[in-house]
């Protein structure tokens, strides 16, 4: 078992607390009508942060689903700016600048998994030393894309780590309606590479599992599927009402296994954390996200921005549409030579 160092554990708790704090701040902003629908991170922190802390941001890639970006601080504070731009609905929200090896989050579930395999394969073909970590949920594992990608990765022996964050729910659908497999990790048997299940509330266990998977990948031994078992402590998104379907007992029990409380207690016991540190981390996290929000809001938006970046060069028709849009409403749909 590879254990993170004390300093790594402290930094992981910082990232976990920051992520939850920022996610809650976003919840409030959404409730105030300042940003769009968002998906709270509560319960996922150790699974994400523990995984990402095994990576080398200079060469390893992260492909998130949609809960992860706020917990990728290790990859650069710019990611938070992207998160806020995205959440206010600004087109630049998709632009995580190079050289940050993180893709924008994915809405079309599981489609990022074949991307991860192609990317990992592409790295190998070019002797780039990185590995690819791809996140997806228990629900997303039912999509054909997951299986097609897992199977392809097995054939290629590509350096990719499949991290299934099993939070017990896909919106309202519980895992027993999602699959009859013994576990999500067990699905790796279909691909011919190892599948391991870890307690996703235990950041050390996650760290160890992903670390091992990364070593395997770097050694040319191919992919690993990891299932990190957690519990979704909040609603699916700001648009969801989990009281319709989440049993209160289950939720209460899960709260007892809160990944942040657990790591915090351990670090406090070893004198690495205390209330003051906690408060400082929270305050810094709020300051960061508020700054990112302000920056996002003041990011310029050209009137025809929505027409950019569809093609490397406007088609003739798109150029006309752009001209119409810039000329004001009246002429917008007068394309062609109609009169």
């Amino acid at each position, binding site marked *: 078992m590879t254990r993170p160092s004390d300093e790594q554990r402290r930094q992981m708790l910082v990232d976990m607390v920051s992520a939850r704090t920022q996610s809650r701040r976003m919840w409030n902003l959404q409730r105030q009508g300042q940003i769009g629908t968002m998906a709270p991170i509560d319960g996922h922190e150790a699974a994400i942060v523990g995984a990402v802390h095994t990576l080398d941001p200079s060469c390893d890639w992260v492909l998130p689903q949609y809960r992860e970006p706020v917990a990728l601080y290790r990859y650069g504070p710019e990611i938070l700016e992207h998160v806020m731009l995205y959440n206010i*609905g600004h*087109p630049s929200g998709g632009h995580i600048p190079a050289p940050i090896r993180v893709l924008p989050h994915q809405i079309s579930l599981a489609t990022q998994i074949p991307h991860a395999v192609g990317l990992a394969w592409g790295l190998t073909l070019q002797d780039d030393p990185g590995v690819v970590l791809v996140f997806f949920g228990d629900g997303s594992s*039912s*999509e054909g894309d997951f299986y097609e990608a897992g199977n392809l990765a097995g054939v290629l022996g590509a350096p990719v780590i499949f991290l299934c964050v099993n939070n017990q729910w896909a919106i309202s*659908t519980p895992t027993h309606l999602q699959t009859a497999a013994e576990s999500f990790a067990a699905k790796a048997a279909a691909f011919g590479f190892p599948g391991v299940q870890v307690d996703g509330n235990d950041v050390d266990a996650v760290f160890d599992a992903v670390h091992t998977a990364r070593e395997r990948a770097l050694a040319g031994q191919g992919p690993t599927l990891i299932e990190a078992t957690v519990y979704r402590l909040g609603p699916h998104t700001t648009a969801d009402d989990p009281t319709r379907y989440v049993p209160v007992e289950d939720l209460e029990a899960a709260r007892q296994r809160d990944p942040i409380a657990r790591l915090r207690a351990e670090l406090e016991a070893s004198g690495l954390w205390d209330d003051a540190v906690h408060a400082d981390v929270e305050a810094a996290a709020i300051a960061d996200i508020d700054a990112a929000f302000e920056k996002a809001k003041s990011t310029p938006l050209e009137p025809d921005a*929505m*027409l950019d970046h569809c093609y490397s060069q406007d*088609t003739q028709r798109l150029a006309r549409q752009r001209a119409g849009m810039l000329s004001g409403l009246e002429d917008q749909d*007068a394309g062609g030579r*109609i009169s």
Partner: protein
Amino acid sequence: MTELNMLEAINECLHAEMARDDRVVVLGEDVARTGGVFRATDGLFEKFGENRIFDMPLAEGAIAGASVGLAIAGLVPVAEMQFLGFAYQAMHQIAGQVARLRYRTQSRFDPAITIRAPFGGGVRTPELHSDSLEGQLANVAGLKIVVPATAADAKGLLASSIRDPDPVVFLEPLRGYRGIRGEVPDGEHLVPLGSARTARPGTDAVVIAWSHQVELACRASDRLSEEGLSIRVLDLRSLVPLDLAAIAEAVDSCGRVVVTEESPQTGGFGGEVVATVVEESFWSLEAPVVRVSGFDVPYPVGMVEDSYVPDEDRIAAAVRRVLEVA
């Protein structure tokens, strides 16, 4: 008559159809226990139980594909795609299988499958939730494409779709779920597929529209009527079958035509409508047909989506434009 929004009308219809015919089964992501992410299927699980409505694993291809099998078994599946953009995950089943079951088996089996899906812009959803794919689906022979614009039609067309022995893609405008309300006939209410509706009478020009654009076209018509213009609005109601006669009649009477839709312009169903207008009523045209549409880019993010989706200003401007032509 009861005043309902589209969501309530759809929900009422699903309740009634499941009660009427116990071969009707409902399947989709999150449709049963929580009643659908918009509550379109609310109450069905409580009323009809777990042998009639199913929370499916998260796989649109399997939802559509299993529907084919259920139809072969003699059931009448009503499948939900949580958002139309995720029908792409199922296109090999919808276009390749659902649409062709009758053709392939030479009518041994009735593909009496209805695929419901919300779509359309204006409510700040993430990527692929708002995309208008009806033009792409309309090119798939074998499918019927139904696009209600009012609460009453949502009820009456959905009932007809479920009872139709052919596969129907039934598209529900996200913005209409709560935003469109109206009087809905109580009890059984059937609107036949393939008959367009005059949403506003008028003689100076006609705006041809479907789904939520009908509402906006009506607002444009109302506004232009204040300027003394008489603008007809033709609500297609279904794209396949297309009511050729209604299109011809409207174009013949008005002579000037605007077609409006949310999809990107290139390859959207609007082009089909223009071609149909030309085929049916070329000699009645007093001006070129103008298309109003989304732009040739993917459906964009929240801050800019309102300028992507045609609104009443753009529709009114286009109408003025066709009227200006000498």
